[in-house]
């Protein structure tokens, strides 16, 4: 339904998203884009929503470039693709009662013919909130309630796809679990497609079947969530997986794929800074090689392209163990 085609986005001279291509097929289960801050994941969301213009490439809505839609096409695109921003971004107008915020979306829906629109109270109850809360202003609600209101507003225009940008990262784990339940319910009951953008691999499985791992503005690994999480092919995916805190987990991150963040001069500044695209030198070599525990000389010379890895999977790593590929020793990447 929505797809990014060779999407490249620049802010000034900094390339934040680099030649990213992926698809969000209609009612296919969720798709996740994973990356840490500075990886360009929020920029991808904004480009898909038409809030920033790509420097190269296109965003296609049902095959048509969203930058070239006519009035009717644009209205259709707007109503079918809706964002759910994270609560921390002031996604609700602080001066408006939340009922008024939802009414604003309903007003848009009533412009187009179709089934009668629900009321704000219906929408609030759909997301598990008391209709009385419509009279409150955002600051009078808890973080979880605000996130539900944001979802209710998106549902007001009867969308087919939700773009969820860190929908739970500002919330307590208990509240996060309930919001994820709500989103999973919407997916199952309404056949709502979802694109989940997050830094936390642990919540991906709950909502998504396909995952794209983003590093420094590039997709470094793609594939079905199950196989990517159980047997990551890219060392960065392994690092992300091992960083997820686990109950009864060991105190130190697991040994094998441990990143070079904790020790040595290469780690100075911490992964948050190293991972930022603007902190990287010119685009020769693999952007991940400074943090990569299995980097070889070749990684400094040549940026690995995204190539098929296994059934339905692609990975951008010279050392990935491809069934038919000539590169890399057989134990690399797949060791764990």
């Amino acid at each position, binding site marked *: 339904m929505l797809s990014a085609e060779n999407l490249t986005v620049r802010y000034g001279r900094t390339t934040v998203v680099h030649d990213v291509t992926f698809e969000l097929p209609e009612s296919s289960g969720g798709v996740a884009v994973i990356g840490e801050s500075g990886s360009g994941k929020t920029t991808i969301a*904004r480009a898909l*929503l*038409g*809030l920033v213009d790509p420097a190269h490439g296109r965003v296609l809505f049902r095959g048509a470039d969203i930058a070239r839609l006519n009035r009717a096409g*644009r*209205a259709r695109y*707007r*109503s079918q*693709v*809706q*964002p759910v*921003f994270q609560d921390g*971004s*002031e*996604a*609700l*107008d*602080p*001066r*408006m009662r939340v009922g008024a*915020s939802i009414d*604003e*979306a309903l007003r*848009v829906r009533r412009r187009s013919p179709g089934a009668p629109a629900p009321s704000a109270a219906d929408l609030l109850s759909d997301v598990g909130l008391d209709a009385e809360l419509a*009279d*409150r*202003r955002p*600051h*009078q*609600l*808890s973080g979880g309630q605000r996130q539900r209101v*944001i979802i209710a*507003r998106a549902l*007001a*225009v009867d969308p087919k796809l939700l773009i969820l940008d860190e929908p739970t990262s500002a919330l307590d784990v208990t509240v996060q679990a309930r919001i994820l339940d709500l989103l999973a319910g919407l997916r199952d009951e309404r056949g709502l497609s979802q694109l989940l953008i997050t830094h936390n691999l642990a919540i991906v499985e709950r909502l998504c079947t396909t995952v794209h791992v983003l590093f420094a503005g590039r997709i470094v690994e793609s594939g079905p969530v199950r196989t990517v999480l159980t047997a990551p092919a890219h060392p960065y995916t392994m690092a992300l997986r091992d960083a997820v805190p686990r109950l009864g987990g060991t105190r130190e991150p697991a040994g094998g794929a441990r990143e070079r963040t904790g020790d040595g001069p290469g780690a100075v500044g911490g992964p948050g800074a190293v991972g930022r695209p603007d902190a990287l030198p010119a685009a020769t070599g693999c952007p991940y090689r400074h943090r990569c525990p299995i980097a070889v000389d070749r990684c400094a010379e040549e940026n690995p392209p995204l190539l098929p890895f296994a059934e339905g999977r692609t990975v951008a790593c010279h050392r990935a163990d491809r069934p038919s590929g000539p590169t890399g020793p057989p134990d690399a990447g797949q060791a764990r």
Partner: protein
Amino acid sequence: MSTSVTTVPHRRTPAHRLLRTARADVLAAIGAVTLVLIVIAAVAAPLLSPYPADGTDATHPTQALLPPGSEHWFGTDGVGRDVLTRVLYGARTSLTITVAVLAVSAVIGVSLGVAAGYAGGIVRDVVMRITDIFLAFPALLLSVALAVVLHPGVRGAIIAITASWWPWYARMTAVTAASIRSRGFVDAARCLGVSRVRIVFRHVLPNSLTPVLVQLSLDAGGVILTAAALSYLGLGPQEPTAEWGLMVQQGQSLFTTNWWVVTFPGLAIVVTAFCFNVLGEGLRAALDPRREVTR
């Protein structure tokens, strides 16, 4: 702490908040009450003043420069007019000028500022350069120069002061509007397909207004003083119109011998400017939408 969120009673209107603040901020409350009294006095000047004719063009040379007493509480001026009456009528002129200057400045400034801040790009550049040109001159100098060109009088004073006043609001609003444009709720509205006009009027404008409202009340004192300065230079309202600045100017030579002629209109200026100022400070606190959860 966010623990109190659930216990906060909802349905609080700005008026409720203002009341609550007023109770807390006694100074702002005193300012507001005094201003209301001044406005009532200005409106009811013909009824309140003992010698209504003195407010316009009557003169009584035989009763010139009488000191304050039971007949004339504030004394009389050089041509025998009751100073109390002149101060009451002067409130009309001074307040008219103030309200007109602030209203016109706010409308021009906020419109241009929101347009510049929300549209960005060329619109922003053009508006900002125009405000730069106006701000390049010292405010009082610009007003004086304009007042010289224009016909001296109430209307001339209003235009002259407005010309140097609006760019501040344009600047301020442009900055606020630009920051509001990048907030999540504006993005959300754009993604819903809400029209640009509606986004501006429902989201950007209301959220840009608070700092301007506060600034307006803080500035009112400044306008009164500027108007007084223009009158003082003979560029504002002319005789026989009663205006505080003009009265001070005419009375200054008499200060050592007949202090009351200049003191009472001077006090009126100071008190009114001060009241607007404390009210502005109070408004700043009252209009913060998050004020309720701070405790």
